[in-house]
């Protein structure tokens, strides 16, 4: 906090003003990044710097009794309460010695336009503690304020969405209790009233009870199925499909025995995915085959293809699917039959589709009515290598040409496989920006920064000059990481957001178009701090969308060693808009 003591004796009071206005001449605060103004105990302005003039949009007269506490701009609280200057924060500092720390107020110019300023006010005291004036250090935080407000909105929205989901879960479980309650009561009623006799009414009761129970069971199963479909890529592993199929058959045991079904299974290979989810695919497909069948079900599970992806077929001798329903079959809660013919809520194939999409696989079918249906589904045989096809699904695949084009809201990432292979892309990206007269932010490690400088120099760029004129701003990524970690992981997002915002606003002030190369995330990855990397990319991605600049991020493939790490790069990829081919 600021505290000002002016070495002055009360007897020399009249000299205070003189000395304070000496400040005006010495320009002490002119290089200060904030606006500063001071007043004496009457509220007459004794000092202001150039930034203050900029924010006020006028140059006040010093020691003018008509301009007490800067009456030329009106102040309002953030909720638009007018604050008369003589009752304002400066007056409170002068009269009551009150300190104001980081208070935001609206300042209205004579033309009616408003800015948000953040003020820090302290009383100025003489040696004996008497208040002889006050100092106000203030900044224009309009843009920041607005961003914070929008972030707050986003947060509230997220919170609201989470609450909505919780509400939904509550309602679902609540709704489940209802039919079960009715069913159990009817069964009790039945027991009490009709123990020995069974007439039409009793049969009605039985039906009601059975239907309610079934409905509850369906709802419960659907809910569970949905929950099973949600989940993380990090639970993926090499799955023995025979084992997944075995699990499904075990769950279907009762129906298989009841229908006297014949099930023939080939020896299946392994695939990369979530065993429980793949088992659920088998269960849904075989369950359908058992259900939609007028004769003894004969079901064959076989390997159709083993090259690259694993494609499995599930063939039945059931009623078949009318080809006109081809696109509808996989829609959620889509049913092709009435409840009387074939019960169910129509969720099974929708769940299959969702699961296979998560696996970056697919599901489809061939069918001829009355002869039967073959459902096929494909799964990756192995975890996709990072430079492989797994990533473009999430971010738009792009060509390196993108690096040359003028900055627009885009968040480009590239994975590099050898320690130096990414340098050309980065230098291309930076050089294009310099040539287009854009501002450049480089958030990189010191060694990499030196490499870039050398490469740019070879392209005849005067790097020293570019840095001196702040056309290129370099921030040491390792240092920033250390600082951020030192401030605590809990505050990481908050702190990082503030740093990036400052950086962007500073750059934007001078360069309407700018681009950034960011390596902090790669540094996090190198230290195994994948969570921080994902969080940091989320922050960047928000800013890219908001401030319309291009951000290029490079990731060293070797940092992603385990399956878990690879799953995180998928998360990272989701926070980018464009993905370049790996280098």
């Amino acid at each position, binding site marked *: 906090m600021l505290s000002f003591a002016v070495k002055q004796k009360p007897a020399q009071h009249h000299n205070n003003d003189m000395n304070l206005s000496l400040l005006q001449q010495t320009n002490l605060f002119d290089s200060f990044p904030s606006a500063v103004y001071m007043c004496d105990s009457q509220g007459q302005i004794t000092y202001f710097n150039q930034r203050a003039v900029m924010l006020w949009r006028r140059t006040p007269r010093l020691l003018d009794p008509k301009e007490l506490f800067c009456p030329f701009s009106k102040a309002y609280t953030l909720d638009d309460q007018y604050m008369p200057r003589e009752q304002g924060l400066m007056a409170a500092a002068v009269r009551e010695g009150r300190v104001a720390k980081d208070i935001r107020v609206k300042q209205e110019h004579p033309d009616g336009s408003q800015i948000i300023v953040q003020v820090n006010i302290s009383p100025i005291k003489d040696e004996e503690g008497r208040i002889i004036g006050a100092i106000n250090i203030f900044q224009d935080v309009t843009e920041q304020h607005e961003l914070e407000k929008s972030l707050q909105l986003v947060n509230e929205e997220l919170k609201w969405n989470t609450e909505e989901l919780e509400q939904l879960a509550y309602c679902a479980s609540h709704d489940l*209790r*209802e039919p079960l*309650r*009715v069913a159990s*009561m009817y069964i009790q009623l039945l027991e009490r*009233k009709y123990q020995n006799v069974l007439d039409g009414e009793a049969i009605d009761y039985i039906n009601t009870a059975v239907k309610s129970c079934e409905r509850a069971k369906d709802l419960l199963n659907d809910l569970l199925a949905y929950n099973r479909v949600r989940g993380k890529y990090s639970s993926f592993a090499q799955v023995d499909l025979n084992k997944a199929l075995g699990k499904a058959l075990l769950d279907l045991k009762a129906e298989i025995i009841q229908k006297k079904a014949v099930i023939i299974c080939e020896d299946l290979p392994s695939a990369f995915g979530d065993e429980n989810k793949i088992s659920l695919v088998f269960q849904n497909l075989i369950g359908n085959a058992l259900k939609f069948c007028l004769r003894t079900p004969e079901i064959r599970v076989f390997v159709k293809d083993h090259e690259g992806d694993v494609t499995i077929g599930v063939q039945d001798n059931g009623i078949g699917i009318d080809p006109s329903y081809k696109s509808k079959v996989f829609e959620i809660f889509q049913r092709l039959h009435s409840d009387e013919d074939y019960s169910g809520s129509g969720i099974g194939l929708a769940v299959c589709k969702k699961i296979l999409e998560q696996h970056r696989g697919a599901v489809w079918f061939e069918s001829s009515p009355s002869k039967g249906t073959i459902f096929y589904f494909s799964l990756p045989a192995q975890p996709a290598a990072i430079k492989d096809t797994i990533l473009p699904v999430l971010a738009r695949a792009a060509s390196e040409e993108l690096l040359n084009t003028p900055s627009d809201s885009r968040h480009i990432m590239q994975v590099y496989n050898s320690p130096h292979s990414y340098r050309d892309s980065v230098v291309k990206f930076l050089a294009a920006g310099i040539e287009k007269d854009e501002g450049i932010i480089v958030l990189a490690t010191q060694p990499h920064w030196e490499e870039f400088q050398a490469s740019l120099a070879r392209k005849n760029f005067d790097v020293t000059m570019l840095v001196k004129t702040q056309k290129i701003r370099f921030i040491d990524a390792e240092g920033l990481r250390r600082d951020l970690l030192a401030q605590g992981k809990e505050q990481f997002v908050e702190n990082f957001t503030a740093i990036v915002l400052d950086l962007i606003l500073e750059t934007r002030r001078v360069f309407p178009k700018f681009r950034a190369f960011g390596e902090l995330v790669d540094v996090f990855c190198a230290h195994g701090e994948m969570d921080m990397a994902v969080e940091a990319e989320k922050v960047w991605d928000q800013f890219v969308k908001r401030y319309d600049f291009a951000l290029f991020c490079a990731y060293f493939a070797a940092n992603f060693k385990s399956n878990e790490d690879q799953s995180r790069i998928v998360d990272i990829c989701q926070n980018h808009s464009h993905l370049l081919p790996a280098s």
Partner: protein
Amino acid sequence: MNILIVEDNKADQVIMQEAFKEAKVNCQLSLVNDGVEAMEFLNRTGNFHASPKIDLILLDLNLPKRNGRETLVDIKSNTKLKHIPVLVFSNSESPQDICQCYTLGVNAYINKPSDFQAVVNLVHIIDTFWIKLVRYCPH
């Protein structure tokens, strides 16, 4: 003694009727399916010109058209009806729902029992308290 049951769920209607039968309560039960019907019944309008004067109302909260809360407000803001005790039956255990109903003037808030014997017990209690013990405004 005339009791009006406002309940849209046919299954619950039957349960209530059976429970009253089993508890051998000396009363006349009338059934309506929603809040709109309830108000017509109580005001003797629409299809309910000849409806009897009701002494006690059993009101489900979760109703189609005008829901239980709205119906409660309709009853308790009507000078000709507000003297009739209303017992709300609901599955909701949320404090907000409960408090809201009392604020709106309900005479008792009761969670729907989940087995039949409990419904019969409840009807016995209604019989002992609301039918045999409590004194009502004379018609």
